[in-house]
């Protein structure tokens, strides 16, 4: 095993990946009352997987987080976002009207809170899914014409 000269890199990356993921969730749940939110958190989660792919190889990353999953995640994210809008509409409000989610009188903010959390969750799924799909599309690309064939 002496040939593995990336051992420090691997160990540090293994340590960092859970921290990065946790930081992503901190940014996510901080987003409704401070800087941060779904987009940034989604990018950070994607970064955790991309770091894994850089250090351990794209095939290993694709086994851990398959491309089908990332693609579906992006689609589900959009549907969560749009779904919150439809939910407000079903409750009799306008599209994306958080106040209508629980039929609250003005001054109560439960619906506002839940509504923005749902939206941020949708953005988190959408952005991390899209980022990883783009990364896989570029990193997993095999040249269609081999170099010798030119």
């Amino acid at each position, binding site marked *: 095993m002496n040939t593995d000269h990336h051992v420090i890199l691997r160990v540090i990356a293994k340590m960092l990946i859970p921290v990065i993921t946790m930081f992503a969730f901190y940014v996510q749940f901080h987003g409704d009352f401070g800087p941060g939110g779904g987009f940034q958190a989604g990018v950070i989660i994607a970064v955790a997987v991309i770091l894994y792919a850089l250090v351990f190889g794209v095939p290993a990353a694709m086994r851990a987080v398959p491309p089908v999953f990332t693609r*579906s995640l992006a*689609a589900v994210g959009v549907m969560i976002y749009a779904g919150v809008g439809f939910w407000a509409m079903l409750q009799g409000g*306008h599209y994306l009207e958080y106040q209508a989610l629980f039929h609250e009188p003005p001054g109560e903010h439960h619906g506002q809170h839940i509504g923005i959390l749902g939206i941020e969750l949708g953005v988190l799924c959408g952005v991390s899914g899209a980022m990883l799909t783009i990364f896989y599309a570029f990193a997993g690309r095999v040249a269609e014409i081999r170099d010798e064939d030119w």
Partner: protein
Amino acid sequence: MIDAILNAAPAWALSHAAPLLVMVPLFLAPLLALVPTGRIAWLISIAATGISFLFALILLGLVQTSPIGVVSYEVGRWPVPLGIELRVDALNAMILLIVTTIGLLASVFSWPTVVAEIPKRKRALFYSAFLVCFAGLNGVAITGDAFNLFVFLEISSISTYVLVALGSGRDRRALPAAFNYLIMGTLGASFYIIGIGFLYAATGTLNMYQISTLLPELAGHRSVQAGFAFILVGLGLKAAMWPLHQWLPNAYSYSPTFVTMFLSATATKVALYALIRFLFTVFRPDYGFEISAFSAILMPLGIAAMVVCSFQAVFQTDVRRILAYSSVAQVGYMILGVSIGTTAGLSAGLFHLVNHAMMKGALFMAVAGVVLTYQGTTIRDFAGLGRSAPWTMTAFAIAALSLIGVPLTAGFQSKLQLGFALFDQGLWWAVGLVVFSSFLAVIYMGRVLEAVFFQPPVNPRKTRKEAPVLLLVPLWILALANLYFGIAADFPLGLARDAAAAAFGVEAFR
């Protein structure tokens, strides 16, 4: 018919028609990315476009029965300067009706061509991209917020690049075409957003109606004029205004045939709508810089488009490229109508926009049928098809005559209106050029029709082989619409007149 739909529609559909029109396809699009097979995706896309079509009819009815002629919807019930407003008047209602009608017909006919051209595992995703594009185009047409318009423009454009690139299964040149389109489209969108930035700096609001009320006192402001210039160039690029049309012929020739048909009838139309919205509603045609832009930029460019691109079309050998260059020429007619700057001119331009969607939709649909059965798009491949595929080719011929502007077709009616509008302003030389360009259309469409009906087939073994029924039905709906509206033009002409009046502002509305 619209009254019946208004009466039958439940109350929630009436009050939420505007957001549902966009959000139903936008919600179903990611769902299509999850469904396993292309056939289910196809059925869902028909359902989504059909629902949008119904909502477009409802919106048209609401606008026509509304006392002020405007349907306004505050997303999230945020009041207007803060939130996004969906604002539908007669102008957008018309555009929405065109986009949803074409979207519905396109998705009905798409299945045979998608099976032939798109690899199996990509079919569901292909429909997903189509629905995103459809929702984006509707969003551009429906929104009353300048920045929201940019977002929807990018939603529709990015999915369009994907759709064009998927033509690479049939022809590898689709990839550079899509990349070229991506660069040009992104440039156009950036110019547009820079222009919006200037307007926002000057007025402090992004709502188009609010900008329009604040602009009269700022019209001499340099940043307003710079914003106008950027928006004109940006949306001109998206609408394929000559000479910014270089992306269009390749994108239309190499994309999947279904995509060509859908885009030719909707994408440039929606960009042109956005341009008209800015020229007439946000800015007013009586501002000094806009008058000079009309006479010094739009009119010469419109005329150049219809003459130069008609000439280019004459020398093409591929039918899809002929039609693509002809599309740029037809955009020239619309720009010419817009650049007159009068209600009559604008309504003629909009009327031609409706008719062009019908005739180009029918022409590209017929070409899709030929590609499906004979795998060729050069004029030589079309030789003798009048005998082997009479139904497809008769519809093609009707739409071609309409494109030329033969009396009793829709194309004649709109060129007539354009001629009237030009005569009103004493621009007889422009009328002459319209007629000249129509003669060029006789030549370039005549070459195809001559091959179709009077030349022997290249390969005599090509026996009678018609396009599938699924393709013939929407094709004939469009072809008969060309004939019907060529004889009884009241409905589209009324839509275009109302739309032009609405574009000039609420006070001019009927």
